[in-house]
């Protein structure tokens, strides 16, 4: 083998408010109590994971004019949980989604710099852009931005936070009691940043944090998203779950790095995936089917159907065929505040695909939904799963995975105890943390080092 063995990166996603989480399982715990977050974080750290990941939600989902009540509802504040978790962990990276629409760069930069200080260099920010007017009703800013403007704002937002993070070099706090000099530079933190979206100036009040800047994640698969990630992110949170789709995405995005003067190692590609483990592959498959049926009840299937059909289908039989009527095209008035609504750009075409699928496999409505909403899962014995994960990474379909367990909070316990040791035996996953910061775990350079290197290359 001429190619060196790649090291796998692993993260644990605290299950959010979607139908991945099986709350009806007797083993399901609280999605709010801090002890649940502590459990997942400690398990992830025991298994030497790179980081823990928290998603964000800013408006409760609605469907048919009512708050959606079938899935887990309710989640805590991202910064508060991550900072509190810094107290009960030592090395685990702490990553959170924070949107760039209902926040201001100064405040977000302050919060991430604070998290980075308070965790001694373990902060990561997943920058997201897609928020709608519905969500805006919870914010004094209100409003929303068209898709193109959102990326523009996101780009400018991220640039602005970089200006703020870089406004302190890192050596300004002298704190010499004898001479009475606390601050080595009377202008520390000064910035003046005027672009179309932001007109801000003053002095940033958090000194440079251990990682310089938090690790930057980007989620999203659009053309703009890929370009944004290639130019500015340290890692991408994707959903490309099959080997082929993964390799294609990986090659495409990594191929975009060179034009920004970046090497292929400077952007990690980490798909969000699920997994099901069993004593035999057959048992795991059986378990996976059971979980899918728990995730997609008849009621849930109808709700999914309504999201695409954009009609009230509450009388539809989930155990019967798909509806004969076509989806209503136009503004979606049925479901609000969920990503899947935005995924179906051409409802008639999607409905046609679903009908073809139902006919080919002779599926009921619920069975169709189970098929089309299933994300790539790694299913099998620990050995099977370890082998499959490793194949993904070694064949450049990803650099690692963000694992979304279906149970809160014990959903990665088995993975930590059985799959991780197998990956370690193969020499593709760390047995001890080699560094202390998240940048260390991900093999990312400190931004100052990276900048120095770019300057050297340019001169």
């Amino acid at each position: 083998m001429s190619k060196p063995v790649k090291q796998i990166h692993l993260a644990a996603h605290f299950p959010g408010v979607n139908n991945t989480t099986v709350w009806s399982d007797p083993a399901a715990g609280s999605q709010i109590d801090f002890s649940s977050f502590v459990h997942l974080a400690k398990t992830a750290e025991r298994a030497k994971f790179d980081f823990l990941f928290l998603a964000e939600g800013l408006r409760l989902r609605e469907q048919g004019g009512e708050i959606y009540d079938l899935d887990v509802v309710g989640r805590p504040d991202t910064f508060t949980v991550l900072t509190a978790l810094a107290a009960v962990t030592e090395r685990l990276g702490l990553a959170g989604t924070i949107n760039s629409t209902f926040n201001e760069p100064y405040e977000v930069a302050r919060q991430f710099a604070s998290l980075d200080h308070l965790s001694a260099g373990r902060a990561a920010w997943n920058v997201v852009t897609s928020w709608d007017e519905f969500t805006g009703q919870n914010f004094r800013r209100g409003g929303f931005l068209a898709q193109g403007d959102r990326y523009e704002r996101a780009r400018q937002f991220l640039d602005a936070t970089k200006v703020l993070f870089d406004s302190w070099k890192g050596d300004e706090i002298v704190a010499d009691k004898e001479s009475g000099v606390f601050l080595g530079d009377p202008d520390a933190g000064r910035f003046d940043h005027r672009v179309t979206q932001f007109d801000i100036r003053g002095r940033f009040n958090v000194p440079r944090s251990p990682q310089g800047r938090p690790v930057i994640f980007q989620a999203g698969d659009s053309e703009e998203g890929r370009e944004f990630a290639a130019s500015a992110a340290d890692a991408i949170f994707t959903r490309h779950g099959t080997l082929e789709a993964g390799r294609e995405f990986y090659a495409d995005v990594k191929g975009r790095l060179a034009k920004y003067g970046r090497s292929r190692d400077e952007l990690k590609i980490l798909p969000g995936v699920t997994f099901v483990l069993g004593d035999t592959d057959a048992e795991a498959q059986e378990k996976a089917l059971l979980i899918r049926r728990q995730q997609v009840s008849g009621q849930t299937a109808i709700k999914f159907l309504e999201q695409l059909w954009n009609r009230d289908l509450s009388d539809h039989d989930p155990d019967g065929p798909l509806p004969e009527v076509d989806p209503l095209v136009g503004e979606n008035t049925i479901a609000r505040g969920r990503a899947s609504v935005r995924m179906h750009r051409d409802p008639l075409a999607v409905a046609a695909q679903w009908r073809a699928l139902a006919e080919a496999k002779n599926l009921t409505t619920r069975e169709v939904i189970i098929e089309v909403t299933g994300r790539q899962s790694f299913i099998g014995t620990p050995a099977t799963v370890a082998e499959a994960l490793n194949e993904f990474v070694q064949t450049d379909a990803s650099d690692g995975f963000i694992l979304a367990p279906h149970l809160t909070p014990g959903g990665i316990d088995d993975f930590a105890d059985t799959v991780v040791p197998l990956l370690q035996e193969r020499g593709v996953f760390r047995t001890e943390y080699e560094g202390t910061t998240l940048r260390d775990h991900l093999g990312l350079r400190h931004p100052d080092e990276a900048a120095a290197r770019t300057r050297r290359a340019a001169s």
Partner: protein
Amino acid sequence: MPQPHPALHLAVALDGAGWHPAAWRETDARPQDLFTAAYWAGLVAEAERGLLDFVTIEDSLGLQSADYTELDQRTDQVRGRLDAVQIAARIAPLTSHIGLIPTAVVTHTEPFHLSKAIATLDYVSGGRAGLRVQVSARPYEAELFGRRSFPPFRFEDFNTPEVQALLTETFDEAADYVEVVRRLWDSWEDDAEIRDVATGRFIDRKKLHYIDFEGPRFSVKGPSITPRPPQGQPIVAALAHQSIPFRLVARSTDVGFITPRDAEDARAIIAEIRAGQDEAGRAGETVHVFADLVVLLDDTDEAAAARGARLDERAGAAYTSDALVFAGTPAGLADLLEQWQAAGITGFRLRPAAVPHDLEQITRHLVPELRRRGLFRTAYEAATLRGLLGLPRPANRYATASAPTTSAV
């Protein structure tokens, strides 16, 4: 048997190396550690050893400045600070009884974000969260956001109609802000999560409520994304120096921090706050009035004065404060606290001039002195901050509306 409720409540206000600008130069100061978790963990652990009701953590959006309306270029004082809500969150899992009240600026931030952050602080601390709201009309802080602007003004102009109008507007906005935050905390009834496997419903959506707040500055729909916090309503506090802010204390808070010059002054301020409470229809609710004092404590009055003089000399100016500066012995301070308590003050927020020294004087000398006088607790008597302050867990404002058949208990 629960012990009788302590007669006097005690809190400390933590800010950098202490409130005196030269505090960071003291031998026992740790100015290099101000931006580490261990520094704050140590201070709050000390406060908890003293069985204090709560700590507050100061904050500001802008860099510290000796000048109110402009940034200075000083290099001889502490500059830079971490987000106070996050410091509180970082400390919460390391402590078990003490209340945590971070400061948050409400003029430039989103009530939705702050509401869920403090609710979450309540979850991670097991019911010990509070929030001190602070307004900012500083022009240089507005420029950090670039969304609104304030005219520069000087303290000398405080009583001009222009400045008073500005103050009224920012404090009215703060009152709206607190109203939104409180409604969001109540927007989930306590038993909204039902996990009813039979019907497939995780929540009872009838127990979630839109808050539909509409005000001149902003509107917020709700409900919160975070379920009602353990205390129902975490403690809301504000610092107030004159009538406009006193009104905010009276109509919106659970705890007001005031800065009387003496017992007589304290009496007058309390009367004004109580009148405001009546006017706001809150006559039956407990609003604690805490007096703020900067403290320099030593074994003798002379030693305290000498330390104050040394700090002043290093700072290059005599220290002045909005609050009374007390330099003396813990016993002398206890005398003063008793005197002010007789005027109606229900608690004290002490601002240590220098930490760790003055903090340890509070926890290791003042507290035992107060205890000897029967004025302070000998053990934490409640698990929540509300409990420590003798406040009941409030009913949910939305619960009765949706469940009219439930008998009031």
